[in-house]
């Protein structure tokens, strides 16, 4: 267990016993008088100087949030306030969302970080008020009047530290924006604040190191092309061990019909690799003419958590590579924030993608008209269409060893609106699927607690708190329906829900949707399947037993 993680009993006691507004305890202070403290476990390490230098970002230096002096550049207040003014001019959303909040309180108990920490400054409205208080202070003529009346305050080092703390306790999940009668999206404010804090060198290594890697090698983990290929080839061997089938992915192949891009976590991380095996089995099953790029080998985009320009810079590789390879369209793997970027930003930033064709499924002939401009299709849309047209030979009994529930990933849910496709697929590839409580799924889904680039080891304590509402909902569906498998369509989820489940709900494993598809696929020429892709025994398919007659 991580040194940054308290014992479960201690954290349980803390959650149950600490007083706070969630339990109806009245605060004796105004929120701006409430102290906060950086201590081990509640901050991510700042970016290393060499990473900052590699990216050409300002103020590279060694520092820690626990230091008294953060070594801010001269005139940092002006940098931040000018930066804010500039962004207020560039984004209607931010201006509007700073101006129109009525503090009605609909959002107060909707944030997973508030529910997990009980800290009032994690109420979405107060998170935004941290910024609004400075924003209001910037109207000189009303300054004195406004301070007390409208909650304005000057930007001090203390306020800057507070911004750093609380804008990394927001995962840009947008759950609050669902409930807001004004449609205020805290993610917009968080995105701006993180971008501003970068300007004075107040940052996060867990985000910026992958950004630097991704820029240079094409993926977050900094994997060079030959290693990338080797890893996928070892997955090919694993597939052969389990199924007896040899799948044949190709790399950087010109003239392929489809470029497939998925988060690099699927290539390197456990349990993501099993999802990758599922994709490759699927593509082999339908004889898809596809290729994988080592250059655009990252679906995820930590630039999204850094700055608008960085997001665009990293994302540009997708179209650049698709054009070079001369593919017809792009197919994207399971990922959350990748899909927010692809769905809502990519074509605007790096389009138009005239050099691609409007996507058509080569197997079913279905035109993906909802992706006709961006020309990138989500794997769940693609697979749901295949299943709907009876193009896959599936045996859902091969997932009978799993009792599943489905976790909607924030970005796919609230930043894309994909709810039915993954459920349809899940329903077809396994026999046991139970939903969690209605207030915790679909558009009301809870974040894994570690999204938006805060899944750092040193942040474990906060992650377990932020993920508590999700874990709590899983615990309940587990008690009710003996669920032991949490299925998701997000690479970050696969990486972060695993420790979350280990901590709060031991015995629940995390699966990618296409891993289950891979388990269920009846491949041509396969050997007798007795194990799933994790090489765990299949129920009812054991070696020495006669097959159950259905």
């Amino acid at each position, binding site marked *: 267990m991580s040194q940054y993680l308290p014992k479960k009993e201690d954290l349980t006691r803390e959650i149950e016993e600490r007083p706070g507004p969630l339990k109806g305890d009245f605060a004796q202070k105004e929120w701006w008088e409430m102290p906060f403290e950086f201590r081990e476990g509640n901050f991510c390490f700042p970016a290393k100087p060499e990473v900052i230098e590699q990216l050409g970002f300002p103020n590279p230096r060694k520092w820690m949030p626990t230091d008294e002096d953060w070594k801010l550049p001269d005139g940092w207040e002006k940098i931040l306030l000018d930066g804010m003014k500039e962004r207020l001019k560039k984004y209607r959303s931010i201006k509007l969302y700073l101006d129109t909040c009525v503090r009605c309180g609909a959002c107060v108990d909707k944030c997973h970080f508030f529910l997990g920490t009980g800290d009032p400054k994690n109420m979405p409205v107060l998170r935004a008020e941290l910024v609004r208080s400075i924003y209001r202070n910037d109207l000189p003529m009303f300054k004195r009047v406004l301070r007390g009346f409208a909650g304005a305050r000057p930007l001090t080092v203390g306020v800057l530290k507070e911004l750093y703390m609380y804008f990394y306790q927001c995962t840009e999940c947008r759950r609050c924006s669902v409930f807001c009668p004004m449609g205020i999206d805290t993610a917009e404010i968080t995105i701006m604040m993180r971008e501003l804090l970068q300007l004075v060198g107040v940052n996060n290594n867990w985000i910026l190191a992958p950004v630097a890697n991704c820029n240079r090698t094409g993926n977050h983990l900094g994997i060079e092309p030959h290693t990338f*290929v080797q890893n996928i080839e070892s997955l090919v061997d694993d597939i052969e061990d389990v199924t007896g089938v040899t799948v044949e992915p190709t790399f950087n192949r010109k003239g392929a019909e489809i470029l497939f891009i998925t988060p690099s976590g699927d290539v390197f991380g456990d349990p993501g690799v099993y999802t990758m095996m599922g994709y490759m089995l699927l593509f082999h099953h339908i004889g898809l003419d596809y290729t994988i790029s080592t250059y655009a080998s990252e679906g995820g985009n930590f630039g999204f958590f850094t700055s608008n320009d960085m997001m665009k810079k990293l994302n540009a590789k997708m179209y650049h590579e698709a054009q070079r390879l001369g593919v017809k369209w792009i197919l994207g793997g399971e990922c959350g924030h990748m899909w927010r970027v692809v769905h809502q930003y990519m074509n605007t930033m790096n389009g138009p993608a005239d050099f691609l064709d409007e996507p058509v499924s080569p197997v079913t002939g279905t035109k993906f008209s909802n992706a006709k401009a961006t020309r990138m299709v989500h794997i769940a849309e693609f697979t749901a269409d295949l299943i709907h047209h009876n193009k896959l030979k599936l045996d859902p009994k091969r997932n009978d060893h799993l009792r599943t529930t489905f976790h909607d990933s924030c970005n796919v849910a609230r930043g894309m609106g994909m709810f039915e496709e993954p459920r349809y697929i899940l329903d077809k590839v396994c026999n046991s699927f139970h939903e969690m409580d209605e207030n915790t799924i679909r558009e009301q889904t809870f974040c894994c607690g570690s999204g938006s680039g805060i899944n750092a080891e040193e942040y474990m304590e906060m992650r377990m708190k932020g993920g508590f509402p999700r874990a709590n909902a899983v615990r309940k569906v587990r008690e009710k329906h003996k669920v032991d498998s949490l299925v998701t369509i997000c690479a970050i989820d696969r990486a972060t829900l695993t420790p979350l489940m280990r901590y709060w709900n031991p015995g629940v494993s995390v699966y990618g949707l296409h891993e289950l598809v891979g388990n269920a696929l009846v491949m041509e020429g396969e050997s007798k399947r007795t194990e799933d892709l994790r090489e765990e025994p299949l129920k009812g398919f054991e070696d020495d037993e006669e097959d159950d007659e259905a």
Partner: protein
Amino acid sequence: MKKVVMPLVIVAVLALIPYIGVEYAGLDYLFGVIMPYTAALVLLAGMLWRMIDWLRRPVPFNITSTCGQEQSLDWIRQDRIESPSKPWHAAVRVLSEVLLFRSLFRNNKAELRKGPDLVYGSHKWLWLAGLVFHWSLLLIVVRHARFFLATLPAPVAWIEHADSFLDVTVPALYMTDAIVLAAVSYLVIRRLLDAKVRIISLQTDFFPLFLITAIVLAGISMRYLTKVDIMSVKALGTGLAEFSLDAPGEIGALFYVHLFLVCSLMIYFPFSKLVHMGGIFISPTRTMLNNSRAKRHVNPWNAPVKFRTYAEYEDEYREKMKKAGIPVEKE
């Protein structure tokens, strides 16, 4: 509780100003004619300026909050309101926010119990109080057309009629008067008794609630208790509606308190959170269509960004790529 007392004091002072001004200084003209014109001008110009100020800022990205199934495969049912793909879908979405407070209707309440266990209960009170509060205010404002127009338009007469159908007092009780007081009380009490909402509340949240309460109380007492000269009020109102500059007749000071508080609200409006009245119509997460993959959204300030090209990448890794059998552009 400074944040409650201060706004109360401000409202009390605001109420005293016209009372003293009219009773002791004879400033009827200032409070009866100059103030209403000024306030109307500030409200209109202010809100217009706020709207223009918002609208001239670009919306660089499509940031729809998708609260329902996107339009995708033909056989999957799209949630056309929560994930709009056509302008009329979004129009219904925004109007249902404006007229019915659709998102607020989703509201639930999280409770932390022993275990620890989080449970979510339905909690529609804020929606209900908010909705009747706003609708009552709107109807009350519409009803006031009686004081500004020589002949009353039929719809206003219907509203008056419907609003007073209970007919339990003399003159007949307007339901909206009672409802708005009940709703505003709930909204104030909630800000005090709900620990979460108390923390987030600022002076500027209590102030408009108190101000509106004072306006309503002054209005109610003029109608049901302390009568003022209604003919003079109507003469002043119709005069104002016709941009007349005539001095008002003899009206009780209470009327000027009512009027001045209304003027204060109008002036306060464009500089406060009350601008949400305009903002709700243009909130990008609700107004935009979830069609960003089907139709390219254009960002007016989209500037080119230098990225690492494939050629640069291959230059660094060419030998390794060749060894691994990965095709390269240059041998």
